[in-house]
């Protein structure tokens, strides 16, 4: 789980991310006025205007009302958020490998301190070379010891780290650092030997992209700079726990002291393209300036970027409407839902309400994610219903994703078709997965219900043919039971209200009665626990729309759907599925992915696929904003004013 953890949290970039919203800063794919694209995921690009170096850009924090609150990249589980990572820490401290730049699901070796790794012939040992040009701005090189420092900390403080996951027994895999047998460190590399052979892309794109080298200057235990020993140890050092405890205690406290983010000398030591200039603890607004010692490939154009805080999307919208010039004008902001122009693939600027204010409409990045609402196989009321493959298929058939995209979401979205995201480009879809892609088919839903012994003369339908036969309602469903459940979703989302009202109406056509209920995002989050004897509250919910799942490079669902996985709160268990997932992690053979996708598309999963939202951005017409990733992170080193 840890290997994917760094990305999954990005789905929770605030309430607005409920539909696994895709948003990064602006678009890497500038819209063209004459392309014929009609789908946001395929819109064409245009050439960029010449870059002007220097200047200060003002950018709205996203989403409005959120801001970073942790600067030490070794985050606790409750700190993992896109505001803290991709929209803050990564500016200063880069993970070994960087995934997803410019809507491309691939490792971008230019973006991190590590070069392409090599593997031993037995596939057990990876050697990660560290770039000689990449150094900390205190003059020290980024070395293997900096990576070892992170791994040591993860080993010692696993229970406190958001990047740690316990072993997955169902899939038969361990995660960092439990899967490491040994490490060999040098100034220019680190070699890691694993407990078994893994999918090499998975190790790089899912595991090592969560590892952020830490400067040795952080190996301290107090404000006086008393030297710690955590970075000096190896993973099997007897003193590792004690050595790292002292450092952890100090750094974790300093890393969340928002008032000293900009003044603490610790956090000024950076290897990324930026350093923190100031941070307003009250509002969360902050400014970054160029790291003059940055040795990476992509040096910033801008001198400074100010991330401005807004109480609400409405307050941000006011500033945008006031125009793109002036001392406090924004160069980049986000259209609120209500004011989003209708998507027009032929001319993205058509209907741009901010044209006269000097802004262009830009398409946000796609997200490596799946959108869904989740059903609870352990629900005391309707769990048996959800376990029936025909029933979840019927629920899927009634979900008209494209109409939702075209209607309430004004064209800004793309469909989720299965357990592996079809967008952005990079994931391989099996023929079986493509054939089984989710589609709107209310006729099939109706026939499925009728074919399995339901009386559709009323809504909700009632089971008239109980039993486990092919034409019966299924195990655990009694005669007279109703095909109904409650679907909870976040409050204050008018587009979602419209979409789900339509879904409810559509489902009623197949005899499925859905009671819609809205609650705050946090209340829904509080409800989302699995059903067990220790957690009876987890048996109380039927279905909840809470957010999607954002993958790392390899979109496997080891921590979401395997038996006993931490995020498997659905009481879903299928040993064959577990085995298929395990293969995706252990094998580099593409057939393993095909098998996984094929099997996943043939069974009843506790996830009903829904659309992914794309966020349109307002970008000043004299500003270029390419450079963002598929995980809602910002890469301002690619931003510049145009000549």
């Amino acid at each position, binding site marked *: *789980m840890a290997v994917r*953890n760094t990305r*999954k*949290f990005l*789905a*929770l970039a605030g*309430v607005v991310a409920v539909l696994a919203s895709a948003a990064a800063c602006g678009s890497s794919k500038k819209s063209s006025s004459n392309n014929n694209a009609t789908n946001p995921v395929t819109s064409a690009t245009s050439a960029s205007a010449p870059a002007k170096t220097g200047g200060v850009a003002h950018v709205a924090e996203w989403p409005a*009302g959120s801001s970073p*609150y*942790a600067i030490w990249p070794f985050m*606790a*589980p*409750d700190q*993992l958020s896109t505001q803290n990572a991709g929209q803050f820490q990564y500016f200063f401290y880069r993970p070994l490998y960087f995934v997803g730049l410019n809507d491309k699901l691939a490792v971008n070796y230019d973006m991190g301190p590590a070069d392409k790794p090599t593997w031993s012939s037995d596939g057990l040992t990876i050697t990660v070379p560290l770039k000689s040009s990449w150094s900390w701005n205190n003059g020290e090189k980024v070395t293997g010891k900096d990576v070892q420092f992170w791994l040591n900390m993860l080993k010692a403080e696993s*229970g*406190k780290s*958001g990047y740690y*996951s*316990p072993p997955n027994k169902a899939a038969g895999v361990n995660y960092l650092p439990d899967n490491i047998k040994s490490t060999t460190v040098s100034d220019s590399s680190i070699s890691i030997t694993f407990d078994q052979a893994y999918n090499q892309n998975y190790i790089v794109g899912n595991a090592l992209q969560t590892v952020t080298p830490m400067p040795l200057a952080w190996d301290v235990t107090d404000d006086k700079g008393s030297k710690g020993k955590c970075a000096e140890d190896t993973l099997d050092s007897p003193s590792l726990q004690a050595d790292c405890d002292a450092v952890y205690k100090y750094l974790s406290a300093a890393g*969340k*002291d*928002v*008032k000293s983010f900009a003044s603490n000398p610790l956090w000024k030591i950076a290897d990324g393209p930026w350093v923190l200039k100031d941070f*307003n*603890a*009250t*509002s969360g*607004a902050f400014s970054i300036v160029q790291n003059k010692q940055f040795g990476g490939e992509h040096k910033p154009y801008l001198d400074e970027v100010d991330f*401005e*805080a*807004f*109480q*609400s999307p*409405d*307050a941000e919208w*006011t*500033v945008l*409407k*006031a125009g793109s010039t*002036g001392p*406090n*004008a924004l160069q980049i902001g986000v259209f609120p839902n209500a004011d989003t122009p209708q998507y027009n693939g032929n001319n993205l600027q058509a209907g741009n309400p901010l044209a006269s204010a000097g802004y262009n409409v830009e398409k946000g990045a796609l997200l490596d994610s799946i959108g869904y609402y989740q059903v609870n196989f352990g629900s005391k009321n309707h769990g048996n219903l959800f376990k029936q493959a025909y029933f979840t298929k019927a629920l899927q058939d009634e979900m008209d994703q494209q109409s939702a995209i075209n209607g309430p979401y004004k064209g800004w979205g793309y469909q989720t078709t299965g357990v592996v995201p079809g967008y952005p480009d990079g994931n391989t879809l099996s023929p079986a997965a493509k054939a089984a892609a989710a589609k709107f088919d209310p006729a099939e839903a109706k026939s499925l219900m009728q074919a399995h012994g339901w009386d559709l003369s009323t809504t909700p339908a009632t089971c008239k043919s109980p039993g486990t036969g092919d034409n019966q309602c299924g195990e655990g469903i009694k005669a007279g039971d109703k095909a109904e459940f409650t679907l909870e979703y976040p409050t204050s989302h008018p587009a979602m209200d419209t979409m789900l009202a339509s879904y409810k109406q559509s489902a009623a056509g197949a005899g499925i009665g859905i009671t819609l209920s809205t609650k*705050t*995002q*946090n*209340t829904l*989050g*509080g*409800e*989302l*626990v699995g059903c067990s004897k220790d*957690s009876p*509250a*987890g048996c*109380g919910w039927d279905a909840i729309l809470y*957010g999607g*799942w954002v993958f790392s490079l390899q979109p496997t669902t080891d921590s979401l759907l395997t038996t006993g996985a*931490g*995020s498997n*709160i659905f009481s879903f268990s299928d040993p064959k599925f577990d085995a298929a997932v395990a293969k995706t992690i252990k094998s580099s053979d593409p057939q393993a992915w095909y098998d996984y996708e094929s099997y996943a598309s043939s069974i009843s999963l506790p996830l009903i696929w829904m659309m992914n939202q794309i966020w349109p951005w307002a970008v000043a017409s004299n500003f270029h904003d390419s450079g963002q990733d598929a995980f809602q992170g910002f890469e301002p080193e690619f931003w510049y004013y145009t000549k």
Partner: protein
Amino acid sequence: MTTYLIRRLFQSIVTLFIVSVATFGLMHLMPNGVARAMLGRNYNPQNLANLNHKLGLDKPLYVQYGHWLDRLALHFDLGYSYQRNQSVNDLMKEDLAQSIYIVGLALFFTIVLSVPLGVVQATRRNTVTDYTITTFSFIGYAIPVFFLGVVLRDLFQVQFHVIPIAKQIDSFHAAFSQPAQMILPVGTLVVSGVAGYSRYMRSSMLDEITQDYVRTAIAKGATKRRVLYGHVLRNAMIPMVTLIGLSLPTLVGGALLVEQIFNIQGIGVLTIQAATQNDFVIVLGTTMLTALVTVIGSLVADISYAALDPRVRLT
């Protein structure tokens, strides 16, 4: 008087205790606890147990309440927000000043404007002036604050650029040093405030004008001006004191809608954000502060009433 004060003090303490118990209990009614919501997608049983332990949420509720009360009573420490990684005292200190400034200014201008308006209306009852002011009062009262704020903002900041766009008002200094930025939020609050207060003042003045002492004063040869401003207005102001006293909680409660519309980081926004994020420690802190000021405001109003009106005796 002393007995009264002691009794009211005791009542206030009981009130605050009940408020704290109710708020504390309500905030802990969240399904599966606050920590689960804080973890969001990063939930797993181990993380939940660790976070509950870190926050002290694995202890019995009465123990948690006891710790909170202990810190509050002995150190006036309202707790620590783990979601914002700051003490609630610090957060409130940072957000309270600008809220008090804005709401205080609004209250001041509301009183300054509504008293003479009420007097004018009462003295020119059923004239065109009265009807005109009444009409505008009704309109001002009927327009929701959020709507008025949005309209004023769009007109003066977006359409005509009369008032420049500013960065977020996130400190007292930012509020104090940019008087132009205060015009719209204060103005928004004043419009709705004046509408209500002036009606109240008008009514109070009319009540007084019909009193016997007014007729007596006139009969004894006092000028109209002296009667009006020397007797009627002073007596008519007494109920206003109650109204002002009861308005004090808004100083610390902030003006949520105005703060949101005009991008002000104030106590109202802090409270609502904390509530939606289930940051119960902050909600508890702001609720307690509001309750405290409400109790004090009520007490001040009662005492002022007695001081201003010799007919009232506090026993």
